[in-house]
Structure formats: C-alpha cells, structure tokens
C-alpha cells in the first residue's frame, strides 16, 4: 500500500556534518506584529492612527507626528525593487551555508523602504510585491516576488520556509 522508506545512503564520516541552524530570531517586541501578520498570510505594517503614515521598521512612535497609536493594518504590498545585492559571505552561520543569497531594497507604494529577501525572478528596477513569511526561525521576514506570478510558477514552492 505504501512504499517503505528508503534507507539513507551512508554518510562519508570524513565529511563535515551540516548543523541544523536557524537564522537569527531575535526581534523587538513591536516587530512581533509582523510575525502575527505573516502567520495569517497577511501583509500588515504599522499605520499611524493620527496621520496615516505607514511605518517600517516597527516603531513605538510615529516618525512623522510622534503618535504612539500605531496598530498593524493591511497595506498595499506593491513596490519597486530599487537595488539588489548578492551576498557571497555572511557573519551568520545559517546564511554562510546558503550563499550566494540575494537581498534587495524595495520602495513600497505605501511609503516606507523595506530590505527583503528576493525571489529568483525579482528583477532590479522592476515592480515587485512583498509578502511577509515566517523564516526557519519562526520570525517574520519580508520577501519580494515578481508582481505577477505566471501560471507555471504556481506549482513551485515560493515561500522561504
């Protein structure tokens, strides 16, 4: 009825064993609002109740009017990828084992600028859409994907996790 599990191949004992690592999961208390949104598949950033400024990174006071009323609200996820880089080395062991790794700066239509992980088909200078995803550590990260997902990609796993 079911295929028995194949026995894994013997590992060369002289080869280094890859450690189970996680990216850094430490976030500020306020930034956990992003993780809550990511867990529900929403794209939510802080929005100032007093002046409607959309805020990123998460803060405790509005940078434009100093209001402290800054709940997380769904906002438009479209933006432009204005610069990208490919990391060839990293101070963090998790990423060091996964280079090259692309990240980029996205200027959101909603206002703020977000540094995000890049999908392989996100192109510098072009439109992207941002999603909040949970990374391996369980914390929220922003990921930039091409604005439209062609049908063929729907079969491809696109999330970070």
């Amino acid at each position, binding site marked *: 009825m079911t295929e028995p599990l194949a026995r894994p191949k013997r590992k060369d004992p002289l080869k280094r064993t890859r450690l189970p690592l996680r*990216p*850094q*999961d*430490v*976030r*500020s208390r306020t*930034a956990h609002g992003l993780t809550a949104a990511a867990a529900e598949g929403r794209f939510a950033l802080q929005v100032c109740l007093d002046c409607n400024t959309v805020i*990123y*990174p*998460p803060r405790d006071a509005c*940078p434009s009017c100093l209001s402290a009323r800054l709940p997380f609200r769904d906002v438009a996820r479209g933006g432009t990828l*204005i*610069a*990208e*880089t*490919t*990391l*060839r*080395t*990293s*101070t*963090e062991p*998790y*990423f060091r084992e996964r*280079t090259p*790794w692309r*990240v*980029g*700066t996205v*200027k959101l239509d909603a206002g703020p*600028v*977000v*540094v*995000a*992980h890049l999908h392989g088909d996100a192109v*510098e*200078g072009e439109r992207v859409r941002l999603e909040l995803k949970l*990374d391996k*550590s369980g*914390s929220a*990260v922003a990921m930039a994907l091409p604005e439209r997902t062609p049908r063929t990609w729907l079969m491809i796993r696109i999330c970070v996790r």
Partner: protein
Amino acid sequence: MDLQCRVLRWGRIPQWGSRSISASRRDGLINIPFGGASGIVAMRRAARAVQAGDANIVACVAGDTNHVDSFRKMLSTFSRFAQDAVYPYGSGGANASFALITKNYMNSYGAKREDFAKICIAQRDDALSIPHAMMKKRLTLDEYMSARPIADPIHLFDCVMPCAGAEAFIVCREDIAKSLNLPSVRILSTIERHNAFPNDPLQVRGGWELDIGELWSMSGLKPKDVDFVETYDDYPVISMMQFEDLGFCAKGEGPEFVRSHTLTNDGTFPHNTSGGQLSVGQAGRGRGLLGLVEAMRQLTSQPLGSQVPNASACLVSGFGMINYDRGLSSCAAVLARAA
C-alpha cells in the same frame, strides 16, 4: 571600549550656591555614541565646553579591540532597526547595506567599479608610509577588480578591516596649548546633523548637503582653499558622496571628480592621507577619530607617514550610525594650522 570624551579639569562651576567642585573631583565623562561621526561630534562638544568655561582641557579618547565573535555580536545587536529589519536578511552586515547603497549610486550616477578602485588604490599608496597600517602592499587595479566578491558590487578591497587601535586628541584654548608647548590646530568651523533626508528611498546624500554653505561661510574658506581632505571611508562610495555633498563637485559628478584627480598625498586633491580605514584598518570605536587625528598630525607637521606639502588648512568629515538602510549622522570640520 567606548568613545569617551573625558573632561579633565572643570572650571569653577557654581553648584549649591557659591560652592565649586573640589580639585579632587574635577572629572566629568561624556559618552559619544555616534560611530563614524563621533570624532567631530566629540570635538564639537569639547570645544563648546571649553568655550563656555565648563572645562579647561578635554581629552577625546576612542579605542577598541576584537574578541572571538565580537564582530558578529556587534552587527546583530547594532540597533533595534538593524536587529528587526536587516540582520535577518542574509546577515551581510554593513557590507550588504552599503552594497545596496553603492549599487543604487552606480545606477543613478554612472559610477563604475574603476572609480571606486581609484579611491582605494590612492589611499593604499598613502598608507605605504604608515608603519602600522594593516595593508602594507601596493594595490593594483587588476587586484582590485579581480578581488573576491563580498556583496555585489562590493568586493574585498572596498571593505575595511576590523582591528584593534585607539585615537585621541585634546581640546583646549590656544593659550593653554602654547603654555604647555603642545602643537595645535585651530577649529575654523564645524557642522553636525542627524537623520537628514529620511524620505530618500536609498541614500545618495548625507546631511552635509543641508549645512555645507554654513560650514564654508563660517570658516571663511572655499573648497579650493583646503590642502587636503579626510572623509569617512567605510566604503568608497561614501567618500565619493562626501566629495559631492561637501562642495567639491556637484551631485552626480563624484565619479568624474575622482577621475580628474590623483587623490594621493603628492598629487592633486590629497585625500585620506594616512590611507584611511580602507588601508589602515577600522579600530571599532576609534574609527570616527582616524581622519580627524590624521588631519591634526598633518597640520602640525608630524604625520606618521608622508607629509602633504604646504598643508595649512583641511576639511574632515564624519559619517555614521547606519540603521537598517542608511547612515544617519553626518558632520564635518574645517581645521587650520595654528597661527
């Protein structure tokens, strides 16, 4: 160690009515946590304290060292913004942030890697005469261009080397310096600004742009009057931005300006005359004082390396405190040889 601006001797400060602080308790201590801007910021605070009579002599001291893993710990906890909004993204640290700034600058103004190479190679030439510079060999264009990529377009020789080291200088009135037989320089003007242009999508300018007219008019000099320039060179693109924002050329003309000068001590537009952080090394908290102390050495004719001929005035600038995408603090000072 942190940057400390240590006030050695308070003047007579009336406290609790007519009492003044006793001789044995004449110490004050100010911490200046502004990274690459801390040297000039400390000098400004110190000069104001001296001017106001709060202190007679202020020593500005900064230094640092490295332990195993201390660089990663510094990056991961640099600020709340760094922790929330950039460190989880590949943890390239400052290399990644400045790679994005560099890429955007190249896209916007047509700078090429060869232009950044010119800055790095000229600084290396200057550093060859400095005995304790970390980099001791001449850098060729080929070596620069074919260096290991770190975070495109940043390659190995665009990056500074964390190292141990310290810098210090003293701020006091000119007559005190003379009476103590201390060689001195004069502060003609200074500027300082934090979080200028928060709405620029990516950093293409620093706060200097807002204050530069005031800096030059206070000093009584013009950009062409200074004999050398010390910029904050955490990455060469930032030096190029400073050439523009400090009034040596217009915005976007940085690449052309670099192509038209040698940038070396013996040539036109001597720049980062000790080799800067790109060749000497980045001594943690000491980084903000490197250019400032080198400027003082040049203007008092006691450089560790080669002397800029006829150096009588210079401009020093500082830049620091990158949050998640840009440096927040900028400052500059015009200094002149003591009369």
